[in-house]
């Protein structure tokens, strides 16, 4: 059984690998993990759900500017507004990190199901789940700001 601390270490490694190898953006850990996160302002969140022997969510929370910069770097074009490309890119980041989380929890893969990614965005909102398990929120620094990878799991 992986502890939340072990899972956090692996998600940090996976996030850094994703950003350096595929998004092509400098990234570093921005301090200690958080237990809770206040309301998100002018932000976009990508999310996938896990079901099966482990239930939970993996969400990535980006400010509007960070999301635009990440999508621009990801696609190699200058994106200036939240549009379907940004929603798709943020959803795909959540999907790839969710796939990593699934592999961390089960290397065989069939005892956990991963949902398709979804995104939400707005001027002010909060994210909560019905999972009711342990959660950790990992902050990362990229050139245009901080973003968060949020894992909530119930074993």
């Amino acid at each position, binding site marked *: 059984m992986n502890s939340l601390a072990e899972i956090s270490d692996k998600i940090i490694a996976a996030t850094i*690998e*994703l950003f350096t*190898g*595929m998004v092509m953006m400098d990234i570093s850990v921005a301090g200690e993990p958080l237990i809770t996160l206040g309301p998100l302002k002018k932000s976009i969140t990508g999310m996938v759900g896990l079901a099966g022997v482990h239930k939970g969510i993996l969400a990535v929370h980006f400010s509007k500017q960070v999301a635009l910069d990440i*999508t621009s770097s*990801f*696609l*190699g074009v200058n994106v200036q507004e939240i549009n*379907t*490309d940004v929603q*798709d*890119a943020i*959803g*795909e980041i959540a*999907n*790839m990190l*969710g*796939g*990593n989380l*699934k*592999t961390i929890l*089960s*290397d*065989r*893969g*069939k005892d956990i199901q*991963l949902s*398709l990614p979804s995104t939400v965005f707005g001027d002010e909102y909060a994210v909560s789940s019905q999972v009711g398990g342990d959660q950790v929120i990992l902050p990362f620094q990229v050139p245009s700001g901080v973003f968060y990878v949020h894992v909530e799991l119930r074993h």
Partner: protein
Amino acid sequence: MAKNILIVDDSSTMRKIISRSLRQAGLDFGDIYEAGDGQEALVVLEKESIDIVLSDINMPNMNGIELLREKRNRPAVKDIPVLMISTETGEDIIGEAKSLGAVGALKKPFTPDAVNAVLGPLM
């Protein structure tokens, strides 16, 4: 002769990134076609001259495993090789894909070097 490639992924971002990675990997390929799920892929496969399919697994409507299963029943396209590109790399899922004819798997996220290593032998 350069190979025509069909990229199957419900994420338009990922289709663009796979396409870019093919170019960055220095592979000699012909035309690139795109489909958003397995159903769209079958339409393209039966209409165009496709040599290699690169397919995600987790997709709406018809996922990558269902695409492999359906493709096997269509004589005109059943021998076209399919390489899975997915976050889903658990042994059971990849084992099922290979039992249905997938020739290999590439884990997301990937680099152009990884694309070259897996796809190069098929080109």
